[in-house]
C-alpha cells in the first residue's frame, strides 16, 4: 500500500547523501507541507463535524414539546376524576317548627339513602329559607354551611310541604314548569320524634327516587359505556332499560355548542310555493330553543324546493284500499330523502346541521302515509325529522299558513327534543333540562378525557409526529378546565361544570387536531439509505480515506 511505503521511506530520505541514488522516487515531503496537509484534512473534518453534523441534526430533528403523558392517560382512565352528582333538594316547610322539620328531613334522607343504589348520584336534602319564618332559615343556612347563593340555580328541586285536611295524603304533585314538588300531608303523618320512619318520609323518598330514576339510568349508562373504571360502582341496569338507553343514545346528536336547524319544504309539484315559516318558528319553536340556551345555541334557516322528486331507487307509493291512502313501506323510509338531488345539509356555519323536512305530496298521491302504522312522520337518528303534510282540503293551497303548519311544528319540536337527548321523564320541563345539563357535562368530561388519552397514546406510538408548543398549551388548559369542571360537579354547581367541560372539550379538540401534527411521510430505513448515500457518499469517501491515510502514516511513526 502506497501510504505505508511512503511512511516507512520518509525518515530514510533525511540523510542527504542518499538522495542521488533515489531519483526515481518522489521527492521528500517537507514537514511544513506535511502539517499543511494535515491541517487541511483536519479543517475539512472540523467543518463536517462542527458545522455539518449539528446542522443535519437541527434540520432533521422533529420538535416534540413535553406533554404530561402520564396525567393525560390518567384522565382517560378515569383516575383523576370520579364524577359525582350531588343534587341539592330544598325542603320548604313554612308551617313546621324547625325541630320537626329537621327530624322529617333526617328520616327522609335515611329512606332515600336506602333506596339509592347508584353511589355517584345522590340526593342531599336540606331545609331552605321560607318567606314566612326568616329566623328558622337563618339557622338552617348556617347549620348547613351553605352560602345564600345556593338558593337559586344550584338547587335541583324544591319540595313544598303543604298541610291539608282533606283528600288522600300523603300525595305529591310535580309542577310542570318549575322545579318544584308539592307534597300534601296531614299532621299525623309527621314522624314522631322517637321513630325513624314515617309514611310521609317514605312517600317523599319514593317520589324523589322515581323522579330521578331516568337521570340515574342515563348517567349509569354513560359511565358504563365510556369508561371501564367506573363499572364497579355502577347501578345495575335492567336489559330493557339498557336497550332503551342505547336507542336513545343512537338517536341523539353529539353535543355541540351550536346546532344549525334547517327547515325545508319539498313538494313534487309547484304548490305550495310559500309557507309562513318565520312566524310559525317564532310562535312554536323559539320558546323551546330559548330554553336550551344554557346548553346549546341554535341557528335556523329554511328553504322551499319545488318539483322535488323521489329517488328512482325507492319503491313508488302504493294505494292501500283499506286505509284509503297512498302508503310507503317502513323499510323504504330511510331512502325517502333523495339525498342525491335534494339540496340538504348546506355546509354553512359551525356545528352540525339538524334537518327537518316537510313533504307535501302531489294531489294524485294524497294522503300519503306509512303503511305499517298509518303515521305521517318519522325521525332519522342523528339527522333530523321528516313529516308528510297531507293537505286537509282537496286543493293544495299555494301558501301554507301558520296554523296549517302547527301540527308539523309540533312534531318537529318533539323530534328536536328527542334529537337533543332530552330525557322523557320526569314531567317537569326544567328538571328534564337540568338533567340534560348534567348528562352533557359528564359526557363532555368523558369525551375530552378520552381525547387526552388518545393524544397521549399517539404521541408515544408515532414518533415521527411533531408536537408543537401550542399543543402542550392546549393540553394544559384542557386539564385545568377538566379539573375545574370535576370540582364544580362535586360541589353540585352544574352550570359552571358544563361550561368548563365545554371549554375542556374545545381545547382538547384543538390539541388533537393541531394542523402541524401530520406525521406525513414514513421513511423506511432503506429509503433513508437511498436518500443519504448519493448525497453523502461522494463527500464522505475522500474525507474518510484521507483521514485513514494520515492516521496510518502517523501511527507507525510513533511506534518507531
Amino acid at each position, binding site marked *: 500500500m502506497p501510504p505505508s511505503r511512503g511512511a516507512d521511506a520518509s525518515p530514510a530520505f533525511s540523510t542527504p547523501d542518499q538522495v542521488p541514488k533515489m531519483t526515481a522516487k518522489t521527492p521528500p515531503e517537507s514537514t511544513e507541507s506535511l502539517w499543511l496537509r494535515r491541517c487541511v484534512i483536519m479543517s475539512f473534518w472540523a467543518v463536517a463535524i462542527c458545522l455539518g453534523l449539528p446542522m443535519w441534526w437541527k434540520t432533521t430533528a422533529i420538535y416534540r414539546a413535553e406533554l404530561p403523558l402520564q396525567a393525560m392517560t390518567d384522565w382517560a382512565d378515569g383516575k383523576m376524576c370520579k364524577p359525582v352528582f350531588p343534587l341539592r333538594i330544598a325542603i320548604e316547610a313554612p308551617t313546621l317548627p324547625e325541630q320537626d322539620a329537621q327530624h322529617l328531613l333526617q328520616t327522609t334522607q335515611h329512606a332515600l339513602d336506602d333506596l339509592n343504589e347508584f353511589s355517584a348520584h345522590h340526593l342531599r336534602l336540606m331545609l331552605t329559607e321560607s318567606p314566612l319564618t326568616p329566623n328558622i332559615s337563618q339557622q338552617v343556612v348556617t347549620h348547613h354551611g351553605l352560602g345564600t347563593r345556593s338558593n337559586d340555580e344550584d338547587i335541583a328541586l324544591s319540595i313544598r310541604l303543604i298541610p291539608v285536611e282533606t283528600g288522600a295524603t300523603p300525595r305529591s304533585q310535580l309542577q*310542570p*314548569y318549575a322545579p318544584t314538588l308539592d307534597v300534601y300531608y296531614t299532621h299525623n303523618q309527621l314522624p314522631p320524634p322517637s321513630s325513624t320512619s314515617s309514611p310521609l318520609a317514605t312517600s317523599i323518598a319514593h317520589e324523589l327516587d322515581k323522579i330521578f330514576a331516568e337521570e340515574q339510568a342515563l348517567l349509569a349508562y354513560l359511565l*358504563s*359505556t365510556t369508561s371501564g373504571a367506573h*363499572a364497579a360502582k*355502577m347501578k*345495575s341496569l335492567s*336489559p330493557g332499560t*339498557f336497550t332503551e338507553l*342505547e336507542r336513545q343514545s*343512537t*338517536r341523539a346528536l*353529539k353535543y355541540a355548542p351550536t346546532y344549525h336547524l334547517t327547515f325545508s319544504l319539498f313538494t313534487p309539484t309547484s304548490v305550495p310555493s310559500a309557507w309562513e315559516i318565520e312566524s310559525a318558528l317564532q310562535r312554536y319553536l323559539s*320558546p323551546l330553543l330559548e*330554553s336550551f340556551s344554557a346548553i346549546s345555541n341554535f341557528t335556523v334557516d329554511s328553504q322551499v324546493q319545488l318539483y322535488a322528486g323521489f329517488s328512482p*331507487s*325507492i*319503491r313508488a307509493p302504493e294505494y292501500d284500499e283499506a286505509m284509503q291512502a297512498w302508503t310507503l313501506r*317502513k323499510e*323504504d*323510509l*330511510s*331512502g325517502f*330523502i333523495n*339525498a*342525491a*338531488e335534494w339540496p*340538504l*345539509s348546506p*355546509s354553512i356555519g359551525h356545528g352540525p346541521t339538524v334537518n327537518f323536512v316537510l313533504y307535501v305530496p302531489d294531489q294524485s298521491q294524497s294522503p300519503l*302515509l306509512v303503511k*305499517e*302504522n*298509518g*303515521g305521517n*312522520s*318519522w*325521525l332519522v*337518528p*342523528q*339527522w333530523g325529522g321528516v313529516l308528510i303534510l297531507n293537505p286537509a282540503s282537496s286543493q293544495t293551497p299555494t301558501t301554507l299558513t301558520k296554523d296549517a303548519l302547527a*301540527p308539523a311544528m*309540533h*312534531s318537529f*319540536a*318533539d323530534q328536536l327534543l328527542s334529537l337533543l337527548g332530552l330525557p322523557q321523564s320526569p314531567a317537569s320541563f326544567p328538571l328534564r333540562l337540568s338533567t340534560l345539563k348534567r348528562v352533557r357535562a359528564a359526557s363532555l368530561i368523558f369525551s375530552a378525557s*378520552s381525547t387526552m388519552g*388518545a393524544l397521549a*397514546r*399517539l404521541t408515544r406510538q*408515532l414518533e415521527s409526529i411533531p408536537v408543537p408548543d401550542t399543543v402542550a398549551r392546549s393540553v394544559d388548559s384542557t386539564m385545568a378546565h377538566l379539573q375545574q369542571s370535576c370540582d364544580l360537579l362535586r360541589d353540585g354547581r352544574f352550570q*359552571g361544570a358544563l361550561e368548563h367541560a365545554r*371549554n375542556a372539550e374545545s381545547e382538547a379538540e384543538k390539541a*388533537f*387536531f393541531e394542523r402541524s401534527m*401530520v*406525521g*406525513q411521510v*414514513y421513511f*423506511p430505513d432503506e429509503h433513508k439509505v437511498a436518500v443519504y448515500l448519493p448525497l453523502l457518499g461522494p463527500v464522505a469517501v475522500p474525507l474518510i480515506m484521507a483521514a485513514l491515510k494520515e492516521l496510518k502514516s502517523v501511527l507507525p511513526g510513533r511506534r518507531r
Partner: protein
Amino acid sequence: MLLSTVLLPLLAGGALAEHTSNWAVLVSTSRFWFNYRHLANVLSLYRTVKRLGIPDSQIILMLPDDMACNPRNAFPGTVYNNADRALDLYGDNIEVDYRGYEVTVENFIRLMTDRVSEDMPRSKRLLTDDRSNILVYMTGHGGNEFLKFQDAEEISAFDLADAFEQMWEKKRYHEMLFMIDTCQANTMYSKFYSPNILATGSSEIDQSSYSHHADNDVGVAVIDRYTYYNLDFLETQVREPTSKLTMGDLFDSYDDEKIHSHPGIRYDLFHGGEAAARSRLVMDFFGNVQNVEVEGQARRNETEWEEDLLAIEKMIAEAKRRHNESLNTQPLPSHLVEEADAQDTKQTVRKEGAFRVDEDAGWAKQIIGAVALLGCVGIWAAGSWLDV
C-alpha cells in the same frame, strides 16, 4: 361480580351499536390522459354510492385530473366507464371535493385525520364520529406497500395505517371498508393495525391489476377489472336501498379468472372476525340506511301543546328577569371573568403572530443573510491572500 357478569354481554352489545351515518372517501391518485380508467373507476363508484343513498355532503371525491375537459377527449364533457357509452359518469350533478393538484398525500392524510385549517369548508371535511361507517376506495398506480400520487409522491402502507390508527383513537369511525384497486394492492392494507377495518384489494404482491377493456373511440382503457366486477355486482344485484345482500356475497362474487389477479380480503382486524365481517350488509358501507323511528298518527293534543309553549315562554321570561336581577346585584360569576381573561390572552397571542411577519423580522433576516455573504467573501479573500 354478579353485576359484571350481567353487564359484560350488554357492554359488548354497546360496542357493536348500530351506525347512524355513512361516508365515502373516493380517491383516484393518477393524472394524465392514459390514466382515464382510474378516474372512471372512482366516478363509477361515486355514482353507485350516490344512487344507494349517500348524500354528496358525505362523499369526499378526489380527482387529480379532469378527463371530461381533456383536449384529447373525443367526447368533451363526459367520462364513460364502458365502451357502449351508455352512461355518462360525469352527468350534471357531480361534486368534486379535491381536484387537480389538491390531491396530494398530505391533503389525503389531513382529510382522514381532520387536521385541516379553520377555513376549510365543511363539504371538504370528513366529519365522522364513532357512529359513522366509512368506505375508503383508492385507485391508481401502486407497488409493494406504496401508492403513487400524481406521479410525484407516494403514500406508504405505514402512513395509511398510522392515519387510520389516529382515526380510531379519536373515534372517527365505527366500521371501515377499505377497497383498493392498484397493482400489488393487497400490500397496502397489510400494515393496518386498527380495529374494525375490513380491507380488500385487487391483487397480491408481485401481481398487476389489469384494465378491463378499452374504448377505441376514447382511445384508452376505460375501467379496471376489479372495479368493473365490483360494480357489476353492486349495479345488478344491489338494486335498491332495502337490499339484504351481505359483504360475504360481494366477496364470493370475486372470480380470479375474470379479474386476472387474486383479490385479497383481510378480516382479522374486524370485530368478530370473518363471520361478523361477512355478515355485514353491503348497504352498511355502500348505502346510507338508518333505522328510522316512525311516529304514530294524530295522537297529539294541539291545545295542550300551545299551553305548554306559553308556559315555557313564561318560564324563560321569569328566568331572564331573575338573571338580570342577579346581574345587577352580584359580581360576574368566576367562569365569565375567566373567559374574558382567556379572550384577552388570545388577543395578545394573535398580536404576537402579527409581529412575526412584520418589517423588523424581515430586516433581521436580510442582515443575517448579508453578514453570511460578506463572511463568505471575506473567507475567499483571506484564502486568496494566503495563497499569494
